């Protein structure tokens, strides 16, 4: 398996105590798999994505082990991670559009970045140009300042930048959230093309928009309040999920084709629990229509059918 995450637990240190942002997460991603990481705000998806590449204060690694391509990824050690960042693990951050230094020309910035990784800019230039072609940006972009590009163009530039050294794992953190519908489609499709051409091996796409994941992801991992709820191939998640939260989440999504007068959608009453002192056992039990006494014990994330993992005592009910 390309990426193996075992028992990863990360807390945030705050004045009022520790926030249990990620609790004992275990999962794996195969080579070349695009996995969507979805959930609502506070579920821990951004924490998970960040901790795989940049685990700094106030995040604290409590326990857990991550292996990438059969080698351990020292996520708790910021110094040692330097060798892995950008080469083996790379990230397209949220608000990538603001990630570029506004006072430097883009070409200069790329050269600096590559130099910091001991890669010669000139030798990579032809490859860089090929990739700019793929994302439909002209070479002149290298001579421009970020302010001269539109939001979608900057996003594509950052995508090229993050994958320059062909990382094994690419983390895309909410890359389509701030874009218009047409740019969203273009950027999502480009991500798939990057994977198809080998510019990156596995991709974790973090988003709250499951419909975008339906278009491009091979598998989807649903998180709730810091715990993993369900992981399965995309079609299975959308059409035949087994976790009550996933089922309810899918059914709250308004689609073109559903009108209020014909069929009222129902939301999920209540809200996610505070993670400062999280509830014992399954964290969804307070809002779950199927909850019973066993839910006070945290259900394990088990494989109920091939490639389908669920953390629920009543999986499939």
């Amino acid at each position: 398996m390309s990426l193996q995450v075992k028992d990863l637990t990360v807390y945030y240190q705050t004045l009022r105590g520790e926030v249990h942002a990620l609790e004992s997460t275990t999962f794996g991603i195969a080579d070349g798999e695009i996995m969507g990481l979805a959930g609502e705000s506070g579920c821990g998806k951004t924490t998970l994505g960040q901790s795989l590449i940049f685990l700094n204060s106030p995040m604290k690694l409590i326990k857990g082990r991550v292996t990438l391509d059969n080698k351990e990824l020292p996520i708790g050690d910021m110094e040692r991670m330097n060798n892995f960042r950008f080469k083996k693990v790379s990230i397209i951050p949220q608000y990538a559009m603001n990630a570029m230094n506004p006072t430097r020309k883009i070409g200069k910035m790329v050269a600096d970045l590559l130099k910091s990784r001991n890669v010669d800019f000139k030798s990579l230039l032809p490859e860089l140009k090929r990739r700019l072609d793929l994302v439909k940006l002209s070479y002149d972009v290298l001579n421009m300042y970020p302010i001269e590009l539109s939001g979608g163009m900057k996003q594509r530039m950052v995508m090229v930048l993050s994958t320059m050294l062909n990382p094994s794992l690419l983390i895309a953190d909410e890359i389509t959230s701030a874009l218009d519908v047409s740019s969203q489609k273009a950027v999502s499709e480009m991500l798939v093309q990057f994977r198809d051409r080998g510019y990156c091996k596995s991709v974790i796409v973090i988003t709250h928009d499951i419909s975008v994941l339906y278009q491009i992801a091979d598998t989807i991992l649903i998180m709730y309040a810091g715990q993993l709820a369900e992981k399965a191939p995309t079609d299975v998640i959308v059409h035949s999920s087994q976790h009550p939260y996933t089922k309810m989440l899918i059914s709250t999504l308004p689609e073109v084709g559903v009108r209020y007068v014909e069929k009222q959608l129902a939301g999920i009453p209540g809200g996610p629990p505070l993670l400062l002192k999280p509830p014992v056992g399954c964290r969804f039990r307070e809002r779950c229509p199927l909850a019973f006494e066993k839910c006070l014990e945290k259900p394990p994330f088990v494989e109920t059918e091939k490639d389908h993992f669920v953390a629920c005592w009543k999986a499939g009910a």
Partner: protein
Amino acid sequence: MAQPRKQNEALYFMRRNAKLQIGVAIVFLFIILALVGPLLTKYQPRDYVAPGAQPPSSEFWFGTTSFGEDVFTQFVYGLRSTFLVGMVGGGLGTLIGILIGFTAGYRGGIADEILNMLTNIVLVVPSLVVLLIVAAYLEVRGLVFESVYIALFSWPWAARAIRAQTFSLRSRDFVDLGRLSGMKPLKIIFTEIAPNMMSYLLLTFILQFGGAILTAATLDFIGLGPTEGMSLGLMMNNATTYSAIMLHMWWWFIPPGLAITAIVGSLYITNVGLDEVFNPKLREM
């Protein structure tokens, strides 16, 4: 009606911030000295107490000047007027800055342009030259005059800062909601915008306070200060005029100079410390 959580958080950080504690402690020390000092001495600043130019002794703690005046007495009375100038000059400057800053920041448009022009003009006018001219006409000047004069030329800095903050707060949704509730602009400024800026206004006042003290000391030093009374700057003026440096009369000019440096410096350090307390991003966890 501030958030209790925020208040407690602020107090928590205030107690841990070294800069704030040191700065406040030093200024507090001098304030005590200014309040209590004159009670410790039986003389007036210009009294003849002993034959001149005596170094510090048990009788005259800071020694005497060339004219036999008690330096300690001059020092503590000077401290009083220093703080007075700071309060009145700094306070008035902040007030004017607030009025103009809020108006320009909230209204925008033509009002903003006009007030901006006014601010720039006041900034550019050479205050020292104007003071020279005024001094030629006003033979007798008091402390209040000096304070007001300083305020009239230092408000632009406060106005600019407040205008910028008001601009950014004005575009927030809760201000729009206030307008949708039919609130008049003045009410919005004072009930919605100003409370959000309290910490900022405090910082501005402290800067104006320190600035006024420094300016007053400078003016006094070159002889453009009040014609009566005593101040630290005036002490230094006298000291230099009467060659205290060459005569090695360190006790005449070092106390006032050191005091001004300490007070103004501590005020600025306090400001930096307060900034860290109020701005979560500057805090080190």
